[in-house]
């Protein structure tokens, strides 16, 4: 099955999975025993106003019709109008998603660099100091609640030391760069505003590290295990018998082989980043899609929750597809 077929089958599977996710989302959003209209009007609005708005928003139509509209809309990328922000959900997503994406990308970069470095060092120096440190570091990463770490680091690096700025994507008085991708780091480079770039970088470091901490732990663990596995293979012995230096054996021969299982975990871990954003964005006041969905969830803003979640599922599936392609590129055996 050549590459084209491989891609086609994967795309087809993705569509089915997304359709399934849409069903789950619709099922959840419409079965929660609470009415969204109450959320908009606030607690003390009189009953008549509640009924009027309910009719206006079409919540009295039968479930099936609403599901039909939702799916046909979703395919066109139209998730309806958010009850809270009253503009099309897709537009909101376009506003908020770049912030989450930027945070996730920086987080994944940090966790890849840190995770793989720690993984290799602890595999090569097995059971020595670095190995113990990296195991404790990664176990702490997996065992501390994200929001707790976030607040702690905020307390130390922002409040006590003042090294890094507190919340938000930019300083309060810096204007965001002209919007190209919506990601401040990239936009500021395009616009050549270097001090904005520096400020955006400083603002993103802490939340990205917190968001990526859990991912770093998983990547370090997987890299260590697969590196240990590869170092036991016969071809490593051949490489040594060719008189190659230790580092060459590790980085040219062993690393590439050990990256293959790591790449698959990156796909999974990227997914956990997207939803980890929900917590990190709240702690660091990061105006991303995570917060949009949570506030949506708290205000029972169905279209926003449904649209946002489906979008994250889409990005997650695309990330997994990219990982599969990367997997094929990295491992020639897959390509036959």
């Amino acid at each position, binding site marked *: 099955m050549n590459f084209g077929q491989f891609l086609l089958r994967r795309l087809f599977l993705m569509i089915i999975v997304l359709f399934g996710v849409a069903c789950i989302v619709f099922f959840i959003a419409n079965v929660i025993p609470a009415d969204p209209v109450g959320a908009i009007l606030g607690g003390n609005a009189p009953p008549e106003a509640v009924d009027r708005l309910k009719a206006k928003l079409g919540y009295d139509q039968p479930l099936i019709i609403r599901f039909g509209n939702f799916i046909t809309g979703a395919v066109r990328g139209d998730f309806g109008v958010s009850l809270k922000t009253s503009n099309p959900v897709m537009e909101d997503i376009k506003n908020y998603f770049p912030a989450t994406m930027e945070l996730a990308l920086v987080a994944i970069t940090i966790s890849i660099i840190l995770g793989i470095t720690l993984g290799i060092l602890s595999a090569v120096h097995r059971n020595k100091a670095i190995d113990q440190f990296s195991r404790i570091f990664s176990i702490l990463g997996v065992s501390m609640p994200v929001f707790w770490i976030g607040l702690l680091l905020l307390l130390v690096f922002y409040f006590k030391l003042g090294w890094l700025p507190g919340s938000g994507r930019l300083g309060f008085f810096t204007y965001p760069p002209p919007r190209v991708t919506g990601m401040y780091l990239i936009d500021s480079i395009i616009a050549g505003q270097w001090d904005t770039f520096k400020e955006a970088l400083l603002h993103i470091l802490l939340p990205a590290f917190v968001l990526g901490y859990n991912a770093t732990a998983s990547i370090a663990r997987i890299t260590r295990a697969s590196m240990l596995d590869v170092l036991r293979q*016969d071809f490593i012995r051949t490489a040594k018998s060719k008189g190659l230096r230790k580092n060459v054996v590790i980085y040219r021969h062993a690393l590439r082989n050990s990256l293959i299982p790591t790449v698959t975990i990156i796909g999974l871990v990227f997914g956990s980043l997207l939803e980890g954003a929900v917590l990190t964005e709240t702690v660091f006041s990061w105006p991303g899609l995570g917060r949009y969905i949570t506030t949506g969830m708290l205000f029972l803003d169905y279209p926003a929750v449904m649209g946002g979640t489906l979008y994250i599922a889409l990005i997650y599936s695309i990330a997994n597809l990219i990982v599969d392609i990367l997997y094929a590129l990295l491992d020639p055996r897959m390509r036959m």
Partner: protein
Amino acid sequence: MELRGKLLDVSNLKVSFYTYRGVVKALNGVELWMDSGERLGVVGETGCGKSVTSLAVMRLIEQPGEIQEGKIIFNGKNLVELSEEKMNNIRGVEMSMIFQEPRSSLNPVMKVGYQIGEAIAKSKKIKIKNTYPEVKDMLRLVGLDPERVINSYPHELSGGMSQRVMIGMGLATHPKLLIADEPTSALDVTIQAQILELLDELARKMGNAVMLITHDMGVVAEFCDKVLVMYAGNSVEYASTARLFEKPLHPYTGGLLQAVPRVGRTDELKAIKGTVPDLVNPPSGCRFHPRCPHAMDICKLERPPFVEIEPDHYVACYLFKGKNEVREDG
């Protein structure tokens, strides 16, 4: 002590492995030597330490194994004392090695041409991409189509082709010594003969010495000039191939030859009774004594010295005395 082998002289080599069950004394004073261009066969049952010896010579013994004692003089230098850095300049340049499982000995995610070029680049201190002409010559030499094979991946080659690649890789740097650890055991018989023929032809053309590790006496007879028989971590007999087949001295060698079916033999094949000893607490004295029909008391007490009974014919057995000692029971 003057060197017995001008190219390589291993004396009293001891290697142990620290495993969960205790210390495995894999090599218990191995004696081995070779001249340049010579073909030495190292034979013995599985677990007699022939592979460990080859790895020790290449200084590839790692955790939990360790070289305890002994000297490995190669080209005048004692490899046991060399630093890792200097050893790297010898490995792959002056000596190289090929292994039993060709397909798993090649890096699955790297092109074959690149892996061969790597060895050349190391020895000639040039960039890998400049080594491709030489790699192509080498591939042609080992009987492979250079254009196709150079860019293919290990999983695209057959067992035989991979072993040819390994040989090419091993000989690409014109090493003085090529160690081949059971190069043909994993291949089926027809391919085995081709590979041996190739190895023979190339080694003769390039003049490198070959240490062939095998448990197949047939291969030894065909390929090797000299033979060293090993048993449970010791060298028990050394002689030219013809002499060993004609007049095996050590009871174990005799037993080995008895177990080999050969054209024209009529007598019944006899197997050596008992099994290979446990190397965690090996038998005292000569480790073969529990299985040796001629075992005497002395055999149980001390390890027999490895002495030259006849010119260029050494044995470690109390049945025979050294050249200057009288044979006890004639």
